[in-house]
């Protein structure tokens, strides 16, 4: 049963479901808290890519699996070099629920290869991305992203 690994991350953000939803897909927003542009037309079956905002290099690719605005987004996720290798594709589910005055954002990353470079990378990366997204939406300003992502990549 446990041949693939799964991670679940949650953050509570004082914002609206629509703003959080938009922040996942608007490349101008993702640039500010993620240092990457998430580029896609966000239609089911379409490709998406995760592009370094300073070099333009593509670091991740995948397909859009499910789009239910402003609640649920499911995408596949892999390194560009593994695009043709199905078993190396993992899956990310974003769920947005209102929770009192705040919004609860849950990120479930599953179908990961245990012990892989990707597993190591995402388990360092998600806490950085989510706390930075929270800061951006709550204060209108993101932390400087470059040192954050140097840390998470190391």
């Amino acid at each position, binding site marked *: 049963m446990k041949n693939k690994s799964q991670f679940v991350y949650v953050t509570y953000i004082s914002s609206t479901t629509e703003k959080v939803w938009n922040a996942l897909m608007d490349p101008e927003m993702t640039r500010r808290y993620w240092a990457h542009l998430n580029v896609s037309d966000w239609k089911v079956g379409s490709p998406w890519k995760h592009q370094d905002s300073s070099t333009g290099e593509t670091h991740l690719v995948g397909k859009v699996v499910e789009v239910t605005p402003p609640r649920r987004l499911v995408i596949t996720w892999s390194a560009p070099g593994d695009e043709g290798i199905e078993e190396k594709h993992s899956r990310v589910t974003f769920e947005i629920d209102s929770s009192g005055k705040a919004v609860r954002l849950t990120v479930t990353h599953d179908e990961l290869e245990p012990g892989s470079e990707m597993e190591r990378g995402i388990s360092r990366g998600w806490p*950085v991305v989510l706390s930075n997204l929270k800061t951006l939406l709550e204060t209108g300003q993101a932390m400087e992203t470059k040192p954050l992502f140097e*840390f998470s990549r190391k």
Partner: protein
Amino acid sequence: MDRVFKALADPNRRKLLDLLRADNGQVLGDLCRHLDMSRQAATKHLKLLEAANLVVTVWRGREKLHYLNPVPIHEIYERWIGKFERSRLRALYDLKEELEKDYEK
């Protein structure tokens, strides 16, 4: 943030987080095998960890799986660690790990 510090202040709760870090997504029964406490006590600790958002639970059928959620700990890190200190702290941490590894042999 108070809830996070309160949750982390107890060694049993830190042990629970360590167990989830080693193997994410465990059920209560799995966690109890490594702990010297009753199921009731473990449940109580897990509730506190969940209230602090350090543990997230997901139902899979009739099983309740527990996941480590380090996002609030990262928020603490962000609050007190400046951007220029990060790489130096990382280097110090790596050095400590390296030296202590040899010492233990």
